[in-house]
């Protein structure tokens, strides 16, 4: 969109965050070899930094699945739902290619095309790989990736590597078949439906083999795990160790989504989801072994746009039909926009390396030893992207949560404020919306946004959360650091967090 480009061009070269300036946790990939960092540098789903700047899309070309998971309902399609496995319009490979080219022409920040369902990409190998094959020819600048349950992975590794699909995500929820039997009721294997422990055993074996084979081919592998309290939550620490040892470079522990209205086994049988504090605790526990992803939005299998936004409705088949696109010009424009984004990012990084003022405050916080320890502070941020505090509170459908401590500022996760729904008239009233917002802000003491109305301001204050609109268009991490310093100077960090909005266990 032209307004987006203008915004990019006029982007002030303000300080931002890089590894050195923002504490160890800020970019979880900073310890990785240069070659891997280069590969994920502009991939929004693999790099927390990149997700502020770049867009991705999924095409729903893969309807069939070869396993059943207890958190999935194969009947689902709701336009207001945003979660894996849900799509509105199934595409053929040809339609998918057309859609990708249309989106990539209209959203020049796009770098990545993924196939993630609504079934399993490798249970539909012709559709998935056919889409990749044609795109590699027509839009060679777009990165290709896929997300699979792993059952059919070993037999497709050769072709995946040959097509330069260099990012593959495997969903691995367990390495123990007894736990797997509680997650997967059946798999389809060698022309039979296999159930119970045996099914889990086969699935785990194929996943692990697929992981090893991809790593041997030099394909980057991320592992997704769904945290299911009481089923695999403790076990995921072991999963993290195992997959890291085999060469996965990033682990993404996601919360179970389970509501009765989703019609899933877990939703209907009353299996609860983890709360924010439990998820964070498990991610922190796994982080000891492996790089953790915390910015996942668990998006739909037909999501379009920046992470956390879905512009799929702008690119339905009938709308694409009427679009006139100059593919070569679009690719050139993408290259220009990406170069601008990179210039902004390098400028931010350079500023930090020169001791840019915005990020220094956090190091000043390292007080003499005699001082009592300062507690960390959770700050929720409303942002539209670019790593800036640039969103009106009332427009936020999700909040980025950052933790400031004497160690620096680190990104904790993105929390949806709309309860996986767009909050329209059909989806709950104002009170329900507010309770979803307050749930998303659990544990946060500050709400950082560019603007906020008087009514919401008072409601947040009443809930023990301090609204702050003093850093509009400022880099997020610098603003969070500045707030932490103010709280520290005011002596507000020596005492325990206000109990009203304390983290529930």
């Amino acid at each position, binding site marked *: 969109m032209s307004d987006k480009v203008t915004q990019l061009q006029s982007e002030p070269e303000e300080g931002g965050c890089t590894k050195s300036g923002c504490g160890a946790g800020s970019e979880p990939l900073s310890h990785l070899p240069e070659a891997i960092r280069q590969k994920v540098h502009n991939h929004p789903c693999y790099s927390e930094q990149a997700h502020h700047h770049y867009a991705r899309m999924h095409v729903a070309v893969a*309807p*069939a699945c070869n396993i059943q998971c*207890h958190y999935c309902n*194969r*009947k689902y399609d709701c336009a207001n739902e945003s979660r894996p496995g849900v799509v509105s319009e*199934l595409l053929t490979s040809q339609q998918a290619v057309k859609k990708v080219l249309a989106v990539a022409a209209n959203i020049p920040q796009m770098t990545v095309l993924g196939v993630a369902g609504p079934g399993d990409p490798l249970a539909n190998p012709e559709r998935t790989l056919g889409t990749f094959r044609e795109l590699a020819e027509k839009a060679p600048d777009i990165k290709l990736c896929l997300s699979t349950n792993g059952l059919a992975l070993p037999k497709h590794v050769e072709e995946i590597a040959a097509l330069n699909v260099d990012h593959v995500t495997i969903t691995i929820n367990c390495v123990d078949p007894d736990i797997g039997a509680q997650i997967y009721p059946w798999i389809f294997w060698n022309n039979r439906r296999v159930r119970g422990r045996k099914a889990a055993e086969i699935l785990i074996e194929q996943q692990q083999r697929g992981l090893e084979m991809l790593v041997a081919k030099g394909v980057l592998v991320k592992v997704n795990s769904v945290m299911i309290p009481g089923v695999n939550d403790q076990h995921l620490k072991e999963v993290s160790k195992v997959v890291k040892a085999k060469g996965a470079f990033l682990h993404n522990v996601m919360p179970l989504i389970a509501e009765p209205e989703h*019609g899933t*086994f877990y939703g209907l049988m009353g299996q609860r989801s983890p709360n924010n504090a439990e998820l964070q605790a498990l991610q922190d526990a796994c982080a000891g072994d492996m790089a953790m992803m915390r910015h996942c939005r668990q998006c739909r299998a037909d999501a379009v746009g920046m992470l956390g936004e879905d512009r799929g409705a702008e690119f339905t088949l009938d709308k694409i039909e009427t679009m006139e696109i100059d593919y070569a010009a679009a690719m050139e424009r993408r290259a220009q926009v990406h170069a601008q984004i990179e210039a902004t990012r390098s400028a931010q990084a350079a500023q930090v390396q020169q001791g840019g003022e915005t990020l220094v405050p956090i190091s000043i916080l390292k007080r003499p030893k005699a001082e009592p320890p300062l507690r960390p502070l959770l700050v929720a941020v409303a942002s539209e992207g670019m790593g800036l505090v640039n969103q009106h509170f009332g427009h936020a459908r999700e909040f980025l949560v950052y933790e400031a401590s004497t160690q620096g500022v680190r990104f904790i996760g993105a929390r949806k404020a709309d309860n996986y729904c767009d909050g329209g008239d059909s989806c709950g009233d104002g009170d329900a919306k507010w309770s979803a917002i307050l749930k998303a802000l659990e544990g946060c003491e500050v709400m950082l946004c560019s603007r906020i109305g008087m009514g919401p301001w008072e409601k947040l204050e009443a809930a023990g959360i301090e609204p702050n609109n003093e850093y509009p268009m400022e880099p997020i991490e610098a603003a969070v650091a500045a707030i932490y310093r103010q709280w520290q100077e005011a002596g507000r960090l020596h005492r325990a967090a206000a109990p009203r909005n304390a983290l529930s266990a």
Partner: protein
Amino acid sequence: MAYQIVAACTNCWACQPLCPSEAIYPAAPHFLIDAKRCTECDGAYSEPQCAAICPIEAAIVDSQGVAVNPPGSLTGIPPERMAAARAEIGAR
């Protein structure tokens, strides 16, 4: 002797490439089985392939009209639990 795909089908395509008799074809509003071609996989596989991969309960019925994968058999959700939840959600 032939299986039949009925209204519960979600058009996920999983069964179509597996059929050894090429009896399954896409149609509106859902996939269909050509009764003249279907052999119920007799002599080809121990399990009829369409019914062995179909994720939707009661979407495929046998020649007697009986669901090959009856309610509860694939998801593990007891039918009475499903009915109760539907009633509860419907009443909201």
